[in-house]
């Protein structure tokens, strides 16, 4: 790999599936449990080589469910942890993802999305897990899902995924698509001095005073490391602040609502998006991941043809940047939502954008990307 310096930054040419694990290690990840699945396997390959070099542990588990379980266990010891999977594996992991949400343990789950349902198109592009990321596990829980479009962005968003997971004590998803996973491009590796690394809140009280879900000071209670002298209990059952099961309706209600507030009350900290030429846009485009790059070209092409098009590119898909979408909806005559599925994010756009004009999709599920021209055609229809 080329290693030239640029303003103190290392310039590399890596595929997305190498960028993410390297960024994870930079973020402090020291445990990876995985299971072979296309098109994310390269991340496991890299972690198996790299983690034992940096004091970490890699394990290939017997299945996707086991990988998610091992991840949560490792996180309880106080380490930063990650797994990577793809659609079917993401489905299998959902129960334990819900468990991680319920006991409030930090972890990062990368999903290199492919076509579906079922085995679908294992080696081809899909953006098919938008709603699975939001609603995949049963019950209500807060969700953070990041969808980088560029590899330098993927590096920084991976670091941010760890920071958010730690800060809010919850699973954080990085949703890539196959195109981003496999393309290689030039990236400059940021120097560690350029970003901050966040650790989970840990108890400041002595063990005998520790209450694992004490939210009297914050909606994000401190989490003690296993074996650190703070002996406590955790369960996937509804529990009170002591961590023990309860069926008290008022406590169940209050605790579940507190969990939701971890994201809902911190939107400005979590939400991230990019707006491109949206100030005067007559036609809005909302796109994410690799599809947003096609949308960017389409917007430029539309402008060249005299159509005022603008792009809203959510980098956090969940929480969805509602206000930005609403502002775009108010301004524009219509919104185009291109996505490599048969219409998932469009539901959210329809729900929040309040656009008086049409909200239309450009949808492809054949494993090939959406081309700029296909988005441009829809923009022209709405202009």
């Amino acid at each position, binding site marked *: 790999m*080329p290693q*030239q310096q640029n303003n103190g930054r290392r*310039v590399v*040419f890596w595929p997305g599936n190498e960028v993410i694990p390297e960024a994870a290690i930079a973020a402090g990840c020291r445990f990876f449990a995985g299971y072979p699945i*296309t*098109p994310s396997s390269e991340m496991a390959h890299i972690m198996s080589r790299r983690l034992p070099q940096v004091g970490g542990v890699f394990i290939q588990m017997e299945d996707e469910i086991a990988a998610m379980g091992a991840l949560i266990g490792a996180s309880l010891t106080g380490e930063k942890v990650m797994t990577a999977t793809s659609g079917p594996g993401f489905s299998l992991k959902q129960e334990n993802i819900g468990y991680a949400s319920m006991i409030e343990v930090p972890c990062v789950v990368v999903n290199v999305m492919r076509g579906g349902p079922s085995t679908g198109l*294992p*080696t*081809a592009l899909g953006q098919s897990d938008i709603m699975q990321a939001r609603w995949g596990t049963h019950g209500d829980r807060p969700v953070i899902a990041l969808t980088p479009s560029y590899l330098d962005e993927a590096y920084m968003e991976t670091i941010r995924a760890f920071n958010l997971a730690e800060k809010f004590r919850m699973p954080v998803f990085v949703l890539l698509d*196959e*195109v981003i996973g*496999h*393309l*290689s*491009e*030039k990236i400059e590796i940021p120097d560690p001095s350029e970003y901050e690394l966040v650790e989970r809140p840990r108890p400041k009280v002595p063990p005998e005073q520790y209450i694992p879900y004490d939210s009297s000071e914050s909606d994000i209670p401190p989490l003690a490391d296993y074996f650190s002298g703070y002996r406590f209990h955790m369960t996937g059952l509804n529990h009170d602040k002591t961590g023990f099961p309860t069926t008290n309706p008022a406590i169940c209600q209050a605790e579940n609502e507190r969990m939701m507030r971890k994201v809902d009350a911190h939107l400005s900290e979590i939400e991230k998006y990019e707006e491109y030429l949206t100030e005067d846009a007559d036609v809005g485009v909302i796109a994410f991941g*690799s599809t947003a*790059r*096609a949308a*960017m*070209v389409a917007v*430029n092409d539309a402008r060249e043809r005299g159509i005022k098009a603008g792009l809203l590119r959510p980098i956090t898909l969940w929480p969805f940047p509602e206000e930005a979408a609403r502002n775009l909806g108010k301004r524009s005559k219509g919104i185009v939502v291109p996505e490599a599925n048969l219409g998932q994010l469009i539901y959210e756009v329809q729900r929040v954008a309040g656009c008086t004009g049409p909200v239309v999709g450009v949808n492809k599920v054949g494993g090939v*990307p959406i*081309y*700029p021209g296909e988005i441009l055609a829809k923009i022209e229809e709405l202009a």
Partner: protein
Amino acid sequence: MSDHFEARFAAVGGQGILLAGEILAVAAISFEGKYALDSPTYTAQVRGGPTKVDVIIDSERIQFPRTTAIDFMLCLAQRSWNQFAFDLKEDCIVLIDPSLVHEVDERYRIYRLPIIEITKKEMKKMVYTSAVSLGAMAGLTNVLNPESIRKALLQKAPPGTEEPNMKAFKLGLEAIKQLMASG
């Protein structure tokens, strides 16, 4: 966008074509300060199937990561031509080995160079096919200075193979110049 350039290297699995694509991209990034990306075809991990890698080079950040108008295509298998000869510009430069690719669309600018024969005769080892191909590509196109591609190849060559790789590159470059001179 005038220097936007798209290349496709198509062959069958095992010919080292993915690495050739990476070398071209690295040449653009490391030695000419450009942006480049490559995206390989991604299939079940088997040897011998048609495979390709697309490389895009631009002086500006590349948005759409897939090819739409290919300037140059290298093809080393008929099956790969049949499967991957799409998105080519009308004036696309196509480099083929006539012993491997027999039927092509003649409307493109076709160059027939016996890459395999040159490699076999001069290098003895077929692993240098991609270095010979890169040399020929460097001579056929003017997207990058051939010296940049040569340096990238040197950088990416496995330890101990630097010298034969340089030789193979030069063979390809000279052979294509000869072919072009002979019209």
